[in-house]
């Protein structure tokens, strides 16, 4: 598997990368967060865009954001993604949704329900690209 070495890197005890998971559905959030921790990532959890922003501002470095598109509270994942691009342009973003995006976006997208291993593979790919400036 092309990403097996990357997963071994995450588990090898090297400084873990931090993923911010933004998801309003608690059971989905817990599932993906625990899977990512099992893969060796450090994970921050946010239930909405406002919490995500607080973590991005105050909770130390975040290496990638995985965010649901449709969330309550007035700000969806696409708006959050644009906020992140403006303030933290180097952070890769993955958007997820059960519905295809209805407005233009260049962000990597995972259609729900998504396979957890596929999500991890995409995360590793984006982190590798970010590290090499790709």
């Amino acid at each position, binding site marked *: 598997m092309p990403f097996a070495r990357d997963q071994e890197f995450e*588990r090898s*005890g090297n400084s*873990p990368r931090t993923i911010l998971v933004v998801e309003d559905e*608690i*059971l989905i959030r*817990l*599932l993906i*967060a*625990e*899977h990512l*921790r*099992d893969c*060796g990532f*450090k994970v*921050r*959890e*946010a*239930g*909405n865009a406002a*919490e995500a922003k*607080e*973590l991005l501002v*105050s*909770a130390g470095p975040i290496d990638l954001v995985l965010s649901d598109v449709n969330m309550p509270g007035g700000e969806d994942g696409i708006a959050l993604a644009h906020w992140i691009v403006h303030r933290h342009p180097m952070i890769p973003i993955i958007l997820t949704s059960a519905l295809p995006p209805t407005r233009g976006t260049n962000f990597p997208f995972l259609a729900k329900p998504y396979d957890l291993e596929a999500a991890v593979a995409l995360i590793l790919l984006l982190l590798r690209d970010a590290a090499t400036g790709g």
Partner: protein
Amino acid sequence: MAHPAGSTGMSSSSPSAPSAHEPQTILVVDGEVLIRMPLAEYLRECGYRVLEAVNSVEAKIVLDAGIEVNLVFADASGLTGEESGFALASWVRQHYPETKVLLTSHVADAAGKAADLCEKGPLLAKPYSHEVVLRRIQTLLQSRERRA
């Protein structure tokens, strides 16, 4: 869900971790993410499996999903009525009597009410140190083991 791997690194001030063969699960319920996240991370480093909930609604979803939770640590300040930490504690006691509850709040005058719900004295006042939280959690979970 798979149990998380062992701690990535214990701080020099971390007390002893729970039994290594079966990490116990703590559900941290707090709407202030900058309070919830550091506590959750600290408890994970101490060896617990930690789940995070933004509010009582999420907490109930977790418990009703059949996820075994050994202790609920919930903020009792802020929301009132059915969404309050006190209401959650009562609900947990009624529906999941084996699950311990530890409440925390900024509200000093709620201490008496909380004492009716929590096993060991009044609720934990905010701001709290993580070490104090850990000791209270360990006491509550050890009392459950002694009765088992």
